[in-house]
């Protein structure tokens, strides 16, 4: 069944009659469509601008490198040395074979030493996250003192052969780093020589 064509454009008005009003309905349709498209594009733009859902929980990151100090809300620290070894000992009773990354650092609290611990000390390597080992005597969960840096070492046990490429160390004064300051230290593990055995620095005042 054929559909009759829509009526064509109006015939030229007679000379006697003034020109008819412009086809207002079409203009209006066009306007509505244009406005709708503009609104859709604007909505898309808003979605692009919008932060992800977890944005309110994101940490405030101070990024630094080995040997350079960094400060965040209640933590000031400098990673002084990074070592890698096939075995690690704490200089006392504990010794363990494996693949180890040992990190020496000076750390202090900034504003408040009440409950200030180096609670978060993580290693991000590839798509994996390692936490500082709880084995042996190390500066994991070290007590921080306001303004007076303490020195210590922590060790990360990683799978054999994985100490290569870029890694990031993450430090914070709380287990929960949501919306709090975090110090990130970028380490190029290709520059870190593999030793046979290293000893953790004893915990003490930084020099």
């Amino acid at each position, binding site marked *: 069944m054929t*559909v*009759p064509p829509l009526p064509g454009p109006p015939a030229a008005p007679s000379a006697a009659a003034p020109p008819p009003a412009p086809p207002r309905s079409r203009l209006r349709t066009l306007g509505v469509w244009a406005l709708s498209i503009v609104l859709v594009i604007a909505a898309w733009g808003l979605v692009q601008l919008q932060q992800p859902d977890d944005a309110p929980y994101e940490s405030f990151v101070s990024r630094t490198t080995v040997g350079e100090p960094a400060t965040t809300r209640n933590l000031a620290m400098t990673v002084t040395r990074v070592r890698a070894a096939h075995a690690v000992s704490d200089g006392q009773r504990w010794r363990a074979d494996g693949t180890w990354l040992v990190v020496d650092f000076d750390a202090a609290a900034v504003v408040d030493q009440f409950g200030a611990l180096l609670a978060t000390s993580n290693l991000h390597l590839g798509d994996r*996250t390692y936490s500082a080992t709880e084995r042996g005597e190390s500066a994991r969960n070290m007590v921080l003192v306001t303004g007076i840096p303490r020195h210590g070492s922590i060790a*990360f046990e990683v*799978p054999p052969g994985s100490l290569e490429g870029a890694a990031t160390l993450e430090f914070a004064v709380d287990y929960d780093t949501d919306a709090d300051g975090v110090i990130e230290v970028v380490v190029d593990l290709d520059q870190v020589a593999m030793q046979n055995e290293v000893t953790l620095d004893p915990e003490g005042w930084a020099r």
Partner: protein
Amino acid sequence: MALPGLRKGAARPLAHPEYAVRVGERDEPLPASREEADATTRAASEARITAWARKMADRVPTAWLVSGAGAVLLASTAAFGGLADVPVPKPPKLHAGEHYVGSDLDMSVVSAAIGGEVRGTGLSPAAGQRTLVVVLDVTNEFSKPRSASAKDVLKGVTVKDVAVQGFSADRTVDGSSASFLQPGVATRVRISWLVDADDVAPGDEIQVLLPDSTHFVGELFTRGDYWADIRTGAYVTVGVDELPAEDEVTS
């Protein structure tokens, strides 16, 4: 309320429409008439389209479609086993040394032993109790450290038909407490429990149950990774040895 009477001059305006047009307005163009004509044409064509669409819609055999969809649904249900429960895969039965991957862990039972008070476990058996020790190799296959004492990790390891009490997990290599399992790091762990001396004796075979679970990522109200729906993933049959005397507390 009185009916409002027709006021003089307002009477029957429609009966004599020519009187409604004031003199002089006749000369005005009548654009309304052409718009009216356009509107009439459009309305007519729209009516024709509607009628056509309705006729076409009437030709669709709705009843047949509904019955057909129902039949297809029933047939596919029957093809996949009807309304019977989906068979739950049975946990595999393994032996010592065989690996089982579940709960994002790679686990392999090495040995089992029973003794008195075992050095380094922190468990002190009461009278009539002994310490059951299971040694297993475990590797965390997840990308973040896992707490060993979680129900989906080493605390999920149990022994079939043996009531256990207490829990201790230590690394065999240095006796340190296995608090966290780092990703990809193979660890030999000793799990110790207190058991009734009558339940397990040297030379027995026990079935160690390894856990399986499902990993979830918190959304909306929860955050972070968690493992839920913890179930038995594998039965591992292992013989129980007598624990060497040097591992026991002698004092």
